[in-house]
């Protein structure tokens, strides 16, 4: 049905079309996308673990704010990532009417909080190990 509608609207969707998840706009901004790939779900889980509930646009703005505009979550990739985490049962949604519009809020499912924290911890350990490889002998602990 989606395909049919897209055809009707004459939108050419390239095969294997995929939007870059995160854009890095800081120094050395030609960071290969492979390095950034997979970070989006971690960013979402981190933000949601610190906040009760957030909506998509708010997440994008918060990332810009935290990284002083050097990192930008691409909206076209954010929603699929949110939907995927929801599909995995990690996130739950609730809606509220704000200024006449239905707004969808995402929050970590209470009994899945441990799973989310575990994923964040795994990434942290990985980054610490990476730091050890990049800077041998320097004791780096990420907080």
């Amino acid at each position, binding site marked *: 049905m*989606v395909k049919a509608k897209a055809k009707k609207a004459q*939108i050419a969707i390239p095969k294997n079309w995929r939007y870059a998840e995160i854009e890095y706009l800081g120094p050395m901004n030609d960071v290969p996308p492979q390095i950034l790939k997979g970070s989006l779900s971690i960013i979402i889980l981190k933000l949601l673990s610190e906040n009760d509930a957030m*909506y998509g646009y708010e997440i994008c703005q918060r990332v810009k704010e935290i990284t002083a505009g050097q990192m930008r979550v691409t909206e076209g990739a954010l929603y*699929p990532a949110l939907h995927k985490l929801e*599909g995995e049962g990690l996130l739950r949604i609730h809606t509220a009417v704000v200024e006449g519009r239905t707004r*969808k809020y995402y929050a970590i499912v209470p009994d899945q909080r441990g799973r989310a924290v575990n994923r964040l911890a795994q990434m942290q350990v990985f980054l610490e190990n990476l730091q050890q490889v990049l800077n041998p002998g320097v004791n780096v602990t990420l907080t």
Partner: protein
Amino acid sequence: MPLTYDQQKNILSLIDNAGAGTYEEVRNELYDHLVQAVEDGMARGSSSPNAKRNALAEMGGEAGLVTIEKGYIKATKRKVWHLFRAFLPVYFKSVRWLLPLALGLTLNLHIWFPLIGISAYVYIFMHKLKAWGYGWGFGWGGVLYQTRTHYPLSLRADVLRQKAIMLVFIPYFSTTLLFGNGLPVAVNIGLATMVLTLIDYSLAFVSHARKNWLEIA
């Protein structure tokens, strides 16, 4: 700066024309996002068309909107499958699952009780008929046949033998006519029981999901 009614309507048309407004959950989400992005763009000094163009570009253009909806469909299907499996212990905790099982068992009993009856008849009459002058043997392929052990036979014994054969085989043939034959019937009924259970499980799941997992109902 809040958008006018026409500007808001324009954004909704954009989503619908892109083919990404099939499901209200995605339509509402994209609409809320785009309206807010356009409002923020206008607050930073962009004109309304420019702010709209930029907001759409950030979403990956119209193709990006379609991809978001596709992703939503895929994720929702995965979520429903996840819940479908999670419902398993809930279903078997209630006594509801006994209903299709009982139905299947009842059908099975219709098959197996007459067969048990036949076995009993055969067993009894094998002994009786032996006394009346008949023995039993197994021929090629397991076919049961009668042998004469006495000569001459009494008429009484012969009439009884005929009645016994009728009593044994009438229930057997009537059951066979109604339900088919032996093991394949039992297998079919087993499958029917499983299908019935699956149907009942699905119905119970939909009902449970509507009550408890409102966001997917």
